[in-house]
């Protein structure tokens, strides 16, 4: 295991941020830590690279106890923080040089590595432009480039694509896949479920400082919800009318006026909706159940009928 957390807790005053959390991140995969804001994701990451000390439990990274081997562990991992930390007056190249020195890289290795990460993240066109003149997407790529300077065996990305446009997100995802293919273990936090589903081999869903469930995205979906989702706008009365006499009530989730039904086969429900509506054909979305549905179901916004 690259990262191994056992019954880890962290309290800030009276408030538990992480509560008895256990987690294993195997080598060479992309592992996603998913959870709503305030679930304890960033605190968990900070404990893994040793900046936050756990109130209880043990943390091993690369098989080493983090509290005893801070420098040795940090020399082998890279972290991209949620907020970009760049020196705005300097160019990307100069930023990379400064950061490489934090890892005690020396010339000529330092310059060689700067060239490599610039090429890897397509920063070449603006490598000599002060960072403050660069776009948000460019700055984010540079922030990730910094965390690659030491050729990390474990790359920790805290919400890497928040606030980026779709093209930049796609480009970053492909870079992250390349890194994983080259053997880097990637630990990522996100609250974009599409990102997790496309990128992660395994995910752990965290809520209120605990792992609620863990597995591959496909397994998690199969374990918690039926494969077909039917979404429609629907009052609570209509909802009860629709499930009345339909055998066992299907699992469903309401967000305001929007209800999603989860079914093995959507056809009978669609049929019932059409019959119920008669002339007024309301719009219905039928789609495969995704990680977003599982996430909402597990983090407490789901309604469950018949239980």
């Amino acid at each position, binding site marked *: 295991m690259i990262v191994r957390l056992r019954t880890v807790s962290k309290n800030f005053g009276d408030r538990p941020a992480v509560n008895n959390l256990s987690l294993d991140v195997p080598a060479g995969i992309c592992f996603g830590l998913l959870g709503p804001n305030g679930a304890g994701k960033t605190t968990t990451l900070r404990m893994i690279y040793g900046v936050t000390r756990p109130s209880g439990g043990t943390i091993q990274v690369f098989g080493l106890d983090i509290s005893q081997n801070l420098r040795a562990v940090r020399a082998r991992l890279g972290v991209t923080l949620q907020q970009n930390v760049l020196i705005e007056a*300097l160019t990307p190249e100069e930023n990379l040089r*400064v950061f490489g020195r*934090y890892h005690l890289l020396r010339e000529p290795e330092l310059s060689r590595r700067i060239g490599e990460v610039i090429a890897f993240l397509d920063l070449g066109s603006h490598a000599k432009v002060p960072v403050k003149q660069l776009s948000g997407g460019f700055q984010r790529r540079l922030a990730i480039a910094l965390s690659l300077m030491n050729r990390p065996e474990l790359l920790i990305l805290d919400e890497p694509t928040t606030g980026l446009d779709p093209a930049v997100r796609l480009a970053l995802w492909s870079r992250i896949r390349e890194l994983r293919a080259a053997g880097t273990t990637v630990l990522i936090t996100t609250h974009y479920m599409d990102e997790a589903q496309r990128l992660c081999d395994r995910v752990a869903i965290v809520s209120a400082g605990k792992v609620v469930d863990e597995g591959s995205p496909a397994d998690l979906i199969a374990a918690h919800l039926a494969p077909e989702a039917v979404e429609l706008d629907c009052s609570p009365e209509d909802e009860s009318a629709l499930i009345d006499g339909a055998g066992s009530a299907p699992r469903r989730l309401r967000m305001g006026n929007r209800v999603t039904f989860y079914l093995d086969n959507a056809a009978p429900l669609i049929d019932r909706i059409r019959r119920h509506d008669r002339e007024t054909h309301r719009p219905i979305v039928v789609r495969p159940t995704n990680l977003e549905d599982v996430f909402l179901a597990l983090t407490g916004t789901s309604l469950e009928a018949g239980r």
Partner: protein
Amino acid sequence: MSLSLPHALAVWRRNAAMYRRTWKWNILPNFFEPVLYLVSIGIGLGAYINEMAGTSYLAFIVPGLVCVAAMNGASFEVTYNIYVRLNFEKAYDAMLTTPIEPDDVLAGEILWAITRACIYGGCFFAVIAVAGLAPLPSALWALPLIPLTGLLFAAIGIAFSLRIPNIDLFSFYFTLFLTPLFLFSDVFFPLKERLPAGWLWVGEVLPLLHPVRLARAAFNGEAAPVLLWDVVYMLGASALLLAWARRSVERRLTN
């Protein structure tokens, strides 16, 4: 204790890399400040003063102004600049994702503040040496006081910067701490001769008074037992403040 000098130097080099971009704008005001005092007070006002403590007035204030240049060089660095790196740029959060530890951050910042003190104090010393205001070689004994003064004021400033809740409080630090020190630490007149007998200890508390007394002794080429106390004060106060700052840095950067 977990200090690694190579990592501290990496912190130092970050600041040096930024300074290389901005030194032209930074160095001029800091450099001119003591020169302006030298001209206005030393030459202008000094023309009306026959002598002070046995020398010309200009010769009296020059050693103190060397220390003031060092004090100012260090102070700007460990106040506004550290506050910005800590609270706005989050530079230390990024450093702590690498093998750099809080002690390295503190050491690197202190070394950098001393460097700034040496740049300003050294420039001013060069000016007065060229102007023939530094009696050589004895005035050279004042040179080690430049980094020592830098260390002392870096330690004071960093201890302050790590504790204050908002950046506006630095105006208190400058106008209610550094400015009175500048005016009352033997730079412009012998404080002891103006204090009532029961208040002589007040002078000994002022941190700037000690390097000024040492610098003046170096310029005059004379030694006295009290200078030993000045050295002990400077090193002791720096050590105590740094020990305190170490805990503050640890607490601010980790949890």
